[in-house]
């Protein structure tokens, strides 16, 4: 345990063993795939048509918003150039599926169905439709392991969307809770404030939703506030995730 905790010497053993148990991940997914297949097979045609119409309308709305977004992005770029600021990184994503979840509440990890063959790398950010989920910690040929932001060993630099106050969001071993560290009692932070990744540290790109402040407590004698945050991402629910490639990740084989 000491060797594993303080040195990377056992990593090759983990890697080999993980490849050996890969068929078990496939097997663990069979019931869910069967359930998905049966659910899609028995859906009535009328329901599919309604769903299709709804998705077409949504697609139209999003395309409209996207046109506005590209206009805003171009304007933002022009203004940044005027200010001689760094250009925003262009991000692309790769869709992936969760194939395994750690059953241990003390270790929030999951296994996804993408590996080195898809250009996945250690430290790569992972998100769902709502926000940041975590980062890749192990990569194998056709699958990878990710550490979730709610794991107690995980910390992520964030800032308040409203005013840019910076802090560190730490995992609490609870899927629905993050904790903000080192926020002084005089800081301008309120319940309901949205938090986004600040980009500091270089691991997570800036501007991705992390969570919402749900409670702020100040205990006498404490130098910092006790702030609880509800994660934006559906950490314990999302099955289809996105692997994020920023333009600095050279050689990434990703799709926009």
């Amino acid at each position, binding site marked *: *345990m000491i*060797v*594993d*905790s303080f040195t990377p010497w*056992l990593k090759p*053993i*983990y890697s080999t*063993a*993980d490849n050996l*148990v890969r068929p*078990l*991940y496939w*097997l*663990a*997914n*069979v*019931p*869910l795939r069967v359930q998905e297949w049966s659910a899609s097979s028995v859906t009535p045609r009328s329901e599919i048509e309604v769903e299709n119409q709804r998705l077409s309308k949504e697609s139209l709305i999003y395309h409209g918003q996207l046109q506005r977004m590209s206009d805003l992005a171009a304007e933002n770029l022009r203004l940044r150039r005027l200010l001689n600021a760094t250009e925003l990184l262009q991000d692309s994503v790769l869709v992936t599926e*969760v*194939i*395994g*979840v*750690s*059953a*241990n*509440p*003390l*270790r929030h*990890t*999951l*296994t996804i169905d993408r590996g080195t063959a898809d250009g996945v790398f250690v430290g790569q950010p992972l998100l769902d439709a709502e926000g940041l989920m975590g980062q890749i910690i192990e990569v194998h040929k056709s699958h990878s*392991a990710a550490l979730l932001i709610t794991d*107690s060993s995980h910390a992520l630099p964030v800032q308040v969307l409203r005013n840019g106050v910076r802090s560190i969001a730490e995992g*609490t*071993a*609870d*899927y*629905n809770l993050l904790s903000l560290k080192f926020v002084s009692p005089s800081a301008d932070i309120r319940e309901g404030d949205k938090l986004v990744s600040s980009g500091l540290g270089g691991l997570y790109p800036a501007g991705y939703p992390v969570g919402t402040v749900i409670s702020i407590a100040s205990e006498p004698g404490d130098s910092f506030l006790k702030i609880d945050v509800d994660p934006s991402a559906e950490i*314990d*629910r*999302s*099955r289809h995730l996105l692997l994020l490639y920023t333009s600095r990740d050279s050689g990434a084989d990703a799709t926009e």
Partner: protein
Amino acid sequence: MQSGNHSIAVFLTVVLAVVFNLMPYSGDWIVWKPNFLLLVVMGWVLYQPKEFGVYFAASFGLLADILLRMTLGHSVIVFALCVSVIVMVSRWAQYLSLLQRTFLVSLIIGVVGLLEASVFMLYDRPSAIEHLPMKILLSALAWPLIDRLIARSQRQRD
């Protein structure tokens, strides 16, 4: 031939337990998910204390460490501790009813879980102790199925 069948039964129950452990469920309740692999290992030791013991449990603890991405040795100790208690009471355990066995297994999981959480709290790390009662309850609910499965393969062997 019988020994071969027995090994297949052990293998199949272990694979089934691992599949249940890894299955990507969703929802708030996943933190209460029982450790099916631990339950199956305890089941085999309970029924076959002469054949399976602490080393058998420790080796599956190693597998659990790899699957659950725990520090290597963590589950080895947890599995070995749980099974040690079963080995100690195995002489009497064979006379217990299903309900009594369920209680015994729940008690062991609870005590070892408390011990595990105490060690984590000692080092000021999250212990997930608040999830322990529900985890014990779900383990107790899952146990009769595992018990029956192992008992059935045991009967087929005899």
